[in-house]
């Protein structure tokens, strides 16, 4: 895999930001950004599916360990990684899905990237907050939490993707 060191840095940055900053921000129960999903979004488009799932699993386990959430992040991130090829096919297109590019707005087009990130982040947040609630007693509240947190996550990932330093070739 190309850019291995770069991805290790992205992984470390997103996981540490999640554990030390966003887990302690305490803005509101409706705004709980899950920034580490950005790492899964930025993995190369043509990546081996099994390896992608393993990356999702490892990311989730790491965040769970640091946050004391006992599997919750792992459930969401493994599922997000599993459906990522379908998400890319649906939003960016099959041609790009078979190439080995880092899915940044500059590489795949801003419009397509926004759809891709919005869809992946929404799915991730819905899975996370539904499993966390584990009840239908406050379903609207759970969906509202998922929506607010998905929006916050999406904006942060978008910001990160825009300022991400792009090298000459990919």
């Amino acid at each position, binding site marked *: 895999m190309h850019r291995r060191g770069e991805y290790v840095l992205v992984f470390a940055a997103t996981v540490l930001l999640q554990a030390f900053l966003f887990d302690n921000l305490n803005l509101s129960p409706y705004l709980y950004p899950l920034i580490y999903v950005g790492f899964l979004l930025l993995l190369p488009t043509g990546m081996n599916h099994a390896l992608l799932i393993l990356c999702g699993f490892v990311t989730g386990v790491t965040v769970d*360990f640091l946050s004391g959430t006992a599997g919750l992040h792992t459930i969401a991130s493994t599922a997000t990684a599993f459906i990522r090829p379908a998400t890319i096919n649906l939003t960016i297109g099959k041609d790009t899905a078979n190439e080995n590019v880092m899915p940044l707005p500059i590489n795949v087009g801003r419009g397509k990237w926004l759809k891709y990130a919005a869809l992946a982040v929404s799915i991730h947040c819905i899975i996370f907050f539904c499993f966390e609630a584990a009840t239908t007693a406050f379903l609207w509240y759970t969906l509202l939490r998922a929506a607010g947190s998905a929006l916050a996550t999406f904006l942060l990932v978008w910001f990160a993707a825009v300022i991400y330093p792009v090298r000459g070739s990919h």
Partner: protein
Amino acid sequence: MYRLVQFFKKYSSVLLFIILEAGAIGYYASSTSYTRATLLASSNKVTAGIHGIFSSIGDYFTLGRENRMLMERLAETETLLSALSTARDTATIPVAEPAYYYSTATVISNSIARQDNFFVINKGTRDGVEENMAILSADGSVAGYVRKCSDKFAVCMSALNRDFRIGGQLKGSEYFGSVYWDGTDAREMTMVDIPTYADVSVGDTLLSAYSSRFPPDTFIGTVSSVKESEDGTYYILRIRLGARMNALGNVLLVKYTDYEELETLAGEYFADYDTRNPQK
């Protein structure tokens, strides 16, 4: 055999996903607040130093307010001590050992955005911290209790955790009920079991009662709304929390000296007994 190999080759990623996801769901479903606190206590051995740095930065913003609160509480305590001293001078009153011991700690990590929130304090077993000690905010309001300790740190179950329970009694009233967080609003808890013939109004003060961990009459919060249950037999009260859970800095630790004996003998009869998540 060839077809079987081809099948596994074709669906290897799906099988991998099912195995990993099932493992994660199984682990999450079987976890309790105790296992989550244990996990957090383990990770804190690695992360506590960094949390401490962030926490010390945050302290600068809350220090003034907390200092004022602590000074007010100190003044109240001095007044009580003075009264006690006068009473001892004028009469021979045997003074019993205190039932509750107080100490202080600083919160180094805290969350309010989840459904099962915990916070971490910078004191552990080497400082005399034990599981089930009550935690009060700087102004003396209910904030949580210690769930798991390591040598230097303790993981505390926040009042904003769906497994948290405490008995509450309206000030000046004989009625009491169970207080818990329903996971919706980080500023409010819910109280049930107050009969509809009781006199309750918005603004009433709620204090701890019949708790095996918290001292009696500890401030929980004030009634913010009153509505009847569906069958009309009891009130569902929304309680505006006294502790500012999103700004916990310095906290008070309270050790009830007879906790072990009481918990062993009659723990299950208390409103704050952990039925869903026994200690181990």
